[in-house]
């Protein structure tokens, strides 16, 4: 039995080192309405031409409390109840990139690393010797360096790009899980209620069981 234990322990210690990928940068997602609205604006400017967010409707942005005028501009001739679809037709995207750019509605949930991954990816572009851009986090990407993160590597310009990336990711986090704020708020009440209830049940249990002694 002891040898068995030793073998198992040795097995544990010889576990392989975790696959070593480029470490993700922390996105520090913002959850306030201002950041999310800025993110929506950046998203509409940088991403919307190619990417859709089919589970989100323009009306959802108004309901969230974004500036109605801005939403009007973004939707153009689309009805307010329309889903946010890419401006570029799928066939054209296929012709330009060889693939249809993925829908962004669930992007924060659909990747390992979530928001941190997206943030790192948006900022992860670099210039290759031949002048094209590559990406540290997703080398096979077909997406151009929309934020120009490969060109702006230092100083205030870099900070601005990071801010934009953070806003976009914050917006996409909201898009992936629009009820998150409500869920967390409700969660504190539920847990609070359960703590009180369980304490009372514990006291009642002690009281009832004390009859036995």
């Amino acid at each position, binding site marked *: 039995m002891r040898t068995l234990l030793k073998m198992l322990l040795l097995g544990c210690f010889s576990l392989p080192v975790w696959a070593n990928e480029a470490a993700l940068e922390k996105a520090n997602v913002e959850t306030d309405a201002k950041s999310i609205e800025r993110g929506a604006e950046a998203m509409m400017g940088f991403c919307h031409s190619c990417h859709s967010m089919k589970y989100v409707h323009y009306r959802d942005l108004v309901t969230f409390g974004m500036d109605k005028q801005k939403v009007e501009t973004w939707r153009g001739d689309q009805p307010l109840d329309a889903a946010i679809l890419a401006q570029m037709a799928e066939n054209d995207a296929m012709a330009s990139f060889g693939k249809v750019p993925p829908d962004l509605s*669930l992007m924060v949930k659909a990747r390992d690393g979530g928001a941190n991954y997206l943030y790192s990816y948006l900022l992860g572009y670099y210039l290759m010797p031949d002048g094209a851009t590559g990406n540290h986090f997703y080398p096979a990407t077909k997406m151009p360096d929309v934020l120009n993160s490969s060109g702006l590597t230092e100083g205030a310009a870099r900070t601005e790009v990071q801010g934009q990336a953070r806003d976009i990711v914050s917006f996409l986090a909201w898009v992936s899980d629009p009820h998150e704020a409500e869920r967390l708020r409700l969660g504190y009440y539920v847990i609070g209620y359960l703590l009180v209830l369980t304490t009372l049940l514990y006291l009642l249990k002690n009281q009832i069981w004390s009859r036995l002694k």
Partner: protein
Amino acid sequence: MPSRIVQWIDQRFPLTSFVKHDLTGYPTPRNLSYWWNFGFLAGFVLVLQVATGIFLAMHYKADIALSFDSIQHIMRDVNYGWLLRYMHATGASAFFFVIFVHMARTLYYGSYRAPRELMWWTGQGLLLLLMATAFMGYLLPWGQMSFWGATVITNLFRATPFFGDQVVIWLRGDYTVGDATLTRFFSLHYLFPFLIIGAVLVHLVALHTVKSSNPSGINLADKDNIPFHPYFTIKDLYGLGLFLIVYSVFVFFMPDSLIEPANNIPANPMQTPNHIVPEWYFLPFYAILRSVPNMVGGVLAMGLSVMIFAFMPFLDRSRIPGGAHYRPIFKIQFYLFLLDMLILGYVGYVPPTPQTIVIGQIATLCYFGSFFLVPFISKAEERWLIKRGLPPEVTTLIEQEAHDKEARRQKHLRRQGEIA
């Protein structure tokens, strides 16, 4: 007036005597620890899953073109749909957690021993039904992991001798996992919980015949039994409160921690995910499947790894009651087995590398070895413990059991004689 109604019912249906015999007055050992709460919790989670599931089914569409969208409809547009879905998804994990603890308790305290073998075997049947239900439910969101998980697992039935290919097509209703598979999995996912409820009733009838085991493993005198109500109703409710706190932390604060990111990508039969992993509760068994290089062997090993628990009443040959309580070696075996399960779970989770494959194979051997060694170790341990001296109540119980067994044998022989 109410008493007259009850009286009217009692003349036609044993209401009062049932409530007294099986609910309020049901005799329960007073020394049950909190490990005995998990059967009740499993029943509670079952009700929770059925309740949330029925409401989810009102908004869900079982159609490969619509199901992924319908989940997003539930998550975004249905009033508190996100809560229903997170409760149901987290509930599945909670169900397995509670059942695993319940099983571990049974193993630790030797509760599977005579006369409770049928409880253990109906429980084993319940575990299989639960696994089938969870597996089919996981296909319904029609994400990448849903699709590829179902593809990998249904594919295992190719190991069936002679007509493996036909069995796989029969299960899927198509050559690949598709719309026919989704609709039948939805139908069966709705049916199976009701089979589970039926099996739970059998489990409970058996329980109320043999009564609960208890941590000492010794049959208690009547004075040590107390009525179920109010003592265990309140203890179960307090346990439920603790459970609900943990459950709510997952539902409200980390609901996505138990959902693979890849399942937020719609199923795509043209693109295999880099790494297909089952839900956490299947990981140890999945690791065993992958540890055997041959497919048929792997499937057999995986099937046996789940079913082997049923053999415990035969494998454990020790006459000493109380499971690990009076049996130090059995206790070590129990903890080593848990450790082995964790290692297998880890091996099932990570992408296979040469090291993890070897670790998985050693852990698989340990898994089966720990069962196959039980008859020998339990007998040797019994001899050693008797030589060392047992507490008098344990000796009494062993003698009592031997006496009962002999009496049964004599009775049987007499009956045989009468017939002849």
